[in-house]
């Protein structure tokens, strides 16, 4: 990712390959004893340290309610890294990494607790030469965001250093609000304390290699962009399918549902990367300017549009991957009469010059037959069916370019070819490009990429305030529309199937069908 100019120019940095070592800083993790910290953040930091990508002067402060010593936190971190890191713990290196880990008890999150935190961070600035730079990572339930942000402001922790040299950034996890109104309120609160350019709303989807590769694929190649528009593209399908159920997140999921959990953030982010105009530069402002234009151009769904252009579902019992699984309402901690949707499909139009009248079909669901995320660009058919007598017309489908985000990251182009022989017989063939087969390199995890980007002050892959609000505006319209409709007859799809009939009808009504990923 591109780097913004830093204030200090170190002549020895010039020409260092693969170099992205950020400025010295201290990272404070709120919710340091939580699941995300254990599974993702600490392993990501450790792997960055293995690769020598953390600043030479760096410290991590864990901040959570439980009482713990630095030593206990270090021990906990070691266990987390042992269990979840993509690479093993190097005993020779661990001590040095662990010496940079500290812990402060959050007590009851009052001003005094934050003042103690401020003292600790100031001490680390002196002792570890971290230069007055801070990153605050909110890995806590959304209900705590507001208090923490306010206290960061009041305690002076969010302020820049006295001489203006230090910076303070904040990383905020999803869900960012639960509708337009709450997202706006949260944005407003954050803006009281942090200027927008220091706010990093994390969406781990954007840290995935293949998602970033959508931009490279589209804009580093000359051959795709000329056909990337309404003249050549019939429609686009974006699928994020999970074979898992709610897996212990029932409390959250009951409140959220598939639309909030997946569509508002991940899927609309992917849609905006697929549909955006070429940015004028590969840097945070230019890329996000173009993404937000797409989100704003999506035709809002209101009232009756919602029933016509969306489908929702909830899984009943069934079989997935050869295993019998319960229905959603039978999952632990789920209301037996729950109306939370575990499946959502949307038909959207991006009303701009490039995409007028090209439908974008989005679908996401739990307990679908397989785990897969992909974008499929369906091109228009050849204008004249020259070969209709030599092939079953149904087999002369349009060309499809599928970008697989996970698993098996890669790109597949489906086109027609003549079956060798005297007569002309035509078959569809898939040409597959797999990242793994061309570049046999294990990529960094999404959290490694995004944490490093934030430490470097590069917000290209983070969502900006206006993007969040544009996405919520669309999603809130759908949620409102659903509320006005009669309660759905859930469950309406069997676990292990490709979703409810309503979703099939959404497509069939347009003479199209969902691709089988």
């Amino acid at each position, binding site marked *: 990712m591109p780097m913004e100019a830093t204030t200090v120019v170190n*002549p020895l940095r010039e020409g*260092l390959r693969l170099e992205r070592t950020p400025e010295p800083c201290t990272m404070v993790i709120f919710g340091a004893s939580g699941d995300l910290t254990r599974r993702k953040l600490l392993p990501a930091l450790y792997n960055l340290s293995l690769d*020598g990508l953390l600043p030479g002067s760096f410290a991590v402060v864990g901040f959570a309610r439980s009482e713990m010593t630095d030593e206990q936190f270090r021990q906990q971190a070691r266990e987390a890294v042992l269990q979840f890191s993509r690479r093993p713990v190097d005993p*020779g290196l661990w001590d040095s990494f662990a010496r940079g880990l500290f812990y402060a008890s959050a007590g009851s999150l009052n001003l005094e607790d934050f003042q103690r935190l401020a003292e600790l961070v100031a001490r680390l600035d002196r002792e570890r*030469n971290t230069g007055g730079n801070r990153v605050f990572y909110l890995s806590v339930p959304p209900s705590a965001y507001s208090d923490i942000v306010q206290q960061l402001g009041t305690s002076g922790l969010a302020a820049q250093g006295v001489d203006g040299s230090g910076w303070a950034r904040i990383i905020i996890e999803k869900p960012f609000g639960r509708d337009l109104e709450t997202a706006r309120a949260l944005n407003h609160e954050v803006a009281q304390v942090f200027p927008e350019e220091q706010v990093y709303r994390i969406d781990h989807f954007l840290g995935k290699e293949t998602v970033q590769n959508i931009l490279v694929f589209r804009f580093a190649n000359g051959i795709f962009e000329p056909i990337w528009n309404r003249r050549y593209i019939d429609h686009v399908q974006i699928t994020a399918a999970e074979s898992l159920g709610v897996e212990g997140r029932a409390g959250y999921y009951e409140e959220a549902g598939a639309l909030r959990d997946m569509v508002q953030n991940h899927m609309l982010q992917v849609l905006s990367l697929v549909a955006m105009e070429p940015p004028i530069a590969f840097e945070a402002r230019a890329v996000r300017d173009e993404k937000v234009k797409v989100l704003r151009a999506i035709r809002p769904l209101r009232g009756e549009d919602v029933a016509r252009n969306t489908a929702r579902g909830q899984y009943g019992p069934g079989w997935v991957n050869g295993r019998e699984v319960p229905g959603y309402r039978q999952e632990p901690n789920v209301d037996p009469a729950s109306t939370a949707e575990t499946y959502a499909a949307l038909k959207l139009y991006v009303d701009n010059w490039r995409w007028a009248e090209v439908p974008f079909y989005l679908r996401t669901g739990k307990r679908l037959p397989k785990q897969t995320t992909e974008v499929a660009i369906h091109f228009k058919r050849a204008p004249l069916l020259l070969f209709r007598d030599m092939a079953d017309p149904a087999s002369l489908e349009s060309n499809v370019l599928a970008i697989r985000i996970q698993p098996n990251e890669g790109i597949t182009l489906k086109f027609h070819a003549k079956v060798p022989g005297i007569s002309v017989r035509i078959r569809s063939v898939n040409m597959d490009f797999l990242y793994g087969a061309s570049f046999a390199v*294990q990529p960094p995890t999404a959290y490694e990429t995004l944490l490093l980007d934030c430490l470097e002050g590069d917000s290209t892959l983070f969502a900006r305030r206006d993007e969040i609000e544009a996405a919520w505006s669309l999603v809130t319209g759908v949620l409102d529309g659903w509320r006005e409709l009669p309660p759905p007859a859930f469950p309406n799809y069997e676990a292990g199937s490709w979703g409810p009939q309503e979703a099939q009808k959404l497509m069939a009504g347009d003479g199209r069908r969902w691709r089988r990923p």
Partner: protein
Amino acid sequence: MSAEQESPNLHWSGQAVDVQAIDAVLERLREKAADAAPAEGAALGTRTSVLTLVAYALDAPAAQRASETIAALPEYHPSRSIVVLAQPSDSEPAIDARLSAHCHIAPGLEGQVCFEEVELTVMGRAARHLHSVVLPLLVPDLPVYSWWSGDLPGDLHLLSDVLDASDRFIVDSTRFSDARLGLPCLASLAQHTATAVSDLSWARLTPWRRLIAQFFDSPSLQPYLESLTTVDIEHAAGSAAQSLLLTGWLAARLGCQPEGAENQVYRLRSAGGTVLVSLRARPSPDEPGSIVAVRLVASRDGSEATFSVRRSEPQLATVTAQAPEASLEHTVRLPGAGEPEMLAEELETPGRDPSYEEALAMAAALLDA
């Protein structure tokens, strides 16, 4: 299931072969290898290519070593590798070939990794026209990385043949029999060819350069960079190439000019005064020529600061800074610097590397001063 057990290696060999026939044989081998690979859930028979690697050697042991290094490349495999053993003489041209194709499922990755190896022994007069043998075997229109694994050849015609057929020319200056003679030759070559020249020894310095640079990311410590007084570089006996390149890099980046040298102490003139750089070889269990320790001393407004990086174990280094403003000490990992790892790193790098070329030119100037 380890990839090794499962990888089908299909071989073909022939004597006095026709170069034109090699491509067809490779095609056949590739299909067989893809068919035989354990491909449950993986795509079969597709090939996505990234580059061709051509290794040149003038004797059989060197060719053998090159083959072994290529076989040991971690993670990153060239789509096609060609090892050319050149045995020029006035006798009739003859070419022996051994071909093999491999497909395996790389651990932790999806899909098959397929690659082909060609080993050629080019004898007689044909060895003076290597391009006619190598050009037809390159994967169309993808970068060609040529690797020359010992001293540069004295035969300029041969060298220019190799350079013409390459986008990137890779050497390992640590393997030069005398770095003090080899580096100036290489510097002159880099200056006069359009092909990007690179050096595995430079790749070995990457972590050292990064760690040294990191000291001066801190705004409070950066001014010391302008007031360096001495730099001590220790390296494992066997070659001074890496130490000389590291000195060349520091001098080039800091805008210093070489003033003279005495007993392995190089005098540099910087804006802030004179910097004395001393290189010391010492017996070490580490790879010959590899850097063992670097220590920089700076003096500013009457106060002194020292910055040092010292290898404590083969893959660990202790980094310390002592300055009135701050002191720090931590341990970092030094990535493996074996030939396969370094070659893999070079294969990932496209285009010229101006920093290397400047460091090399400066190292040559130091030796000349």
